[in-house]
């Protein structure tokens, strides 16, 4: 664990308390930034078609494919930006991942 002070809302912190030169001193804090909230399309996982090859996990440019014990378990919609790469790379004949309009489903 980091011994450094963590900041939750930068706009509440004065210049004296902010880390010097804007250094991001908390490792992995990108997880706190929900990049999925500006998605326009989203993948839908059809579990019956899934062969758990994990191509989607490999190709996802974020870390939005959730797995457990080497098997796909779902999608992290807080971080999935809807790029569609997982659906494109999904190798099964009947796709296990398909993109749908997120504005309708939400």
């Amino acid at each position, binding site marked *: 664990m980091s011994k450094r002070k963590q900041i939750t809302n930068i706009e509440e912190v*004065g*210049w004296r308390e902010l880390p010097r030169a*804007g250094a991001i001193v908390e490792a992995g804090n990108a997880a706190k930034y929900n990049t999925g909230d500006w998605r326009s399309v989203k993948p839908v996982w059809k579990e019956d078609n899934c062969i758990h090859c994990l191509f989607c996990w490999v190709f996802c440019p974020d870390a939005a494919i959730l797995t457990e014990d080497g098997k796909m378990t779902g999608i992290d919609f807080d971080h999935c930006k809807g790029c569609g790469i997982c659906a494109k790379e999904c190798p099964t004949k009947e796709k296990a991942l398909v993109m749908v309009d997120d504005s309708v489903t939400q």
Partner: protein
Amino acid sequence: MGERVALTGNEAVSLAMKQINPDVVAAYPITPQTDIVQYFSTFVADGEVDTEFVTVESEHSAMSATVGAASAGARAMTATSSNGLALMWEIVYIASSMRLPIVMPVVNRALSGPINIHCDHSDSMGARDSGWIQIYSENAQEAYDNTLQAIRITEHPDVLLPAMVCQDGFIISHALENLEIEDTEALRRFIGIRSADISLLDTEDPVTLGPLALFDSYFEFKRQQAEAMAQAKQVILDVAREYETLAGRYYGLFEAYKLEDAEMAVVVIGSTAGTAKAVVDELREEGKKAGMLKIRVFRPFPAEELVDALKDIPIIAVMDRAESFSTQGGPLFSELKAALYETEARPQVHNFIYGLGGRDVRVEDIETVYTRLEESLNTSNKLDRVSYLGVRE
């Protein structure tokens, strides 16, 4: 106490770098700085330093590699002149905004164009708002001493800003001079080992350095930089005192020469101070109360201290070896005059722009300045706000 040797300014600075033994040096040669890189590369080739020497294809890369190394916690240095500094420009600002303690010898040379290889201060004066500490040297001795002190200044936790250590191209850099050099072991104890509180190589506690900062935080980081620069003043003085116990030589923020009872004074930066001191001595023998002030630290600008030293002198000539094209005089003039505005007596202050592109500054030229000061004070022949000394009319 040191050993007396004869070295050029560039040799003296490269020797200082050898004694510093930086972790990384990334540099590109440019006249008149070339010797520094050349001599240092022989120290690397001969195994006299442990430095990782990065030969780069441009100054932009030199500064970039230095920034990367310093971000990783290394003691990293580079050196440049003139257009080389201009090519670094983007990364010069990034080095200071990332608060990296980089020491960069700058061998002052006129900026193009017309292309010119000789001394003026247009290169480093152009970088006066880049957030770097700027220390100017009168001679090779000072260039050597300032380079060593700059390591301690830049790495001080209250500062963590980069520093340019400036010397006049050719006039200092290529002139052989007698100076005193210090024992390497004593110097290494003085500078110590850099311990970075944040480092890109810290795998236990990883960090991201140099990220985007928009309207919600950029301003706060600039405020931090301004505070660090304000803190630097005291640190520079403390380091100077500590260096004095080692070397027996002390330099403050500036040097006041026969200023206490002076009725006229010249304020100058760099090698011309030596010429001006000779003229002051000459005038004093004639019974004229002439004085001189040499700026050592231009960034941070020691305004309060300068005002204290100059406030009772009726007339002052400020010498700028750089044109700012503001039409209101050179950079030193503008800042010093602004500082003196707050004094009650408000001395008469006049600007002389001189020595551009290496135009020689002779004893007679400085004599002319004092003569004009006397005339302006005592007769109706008043000085203009800005005069060009030594230009052909």
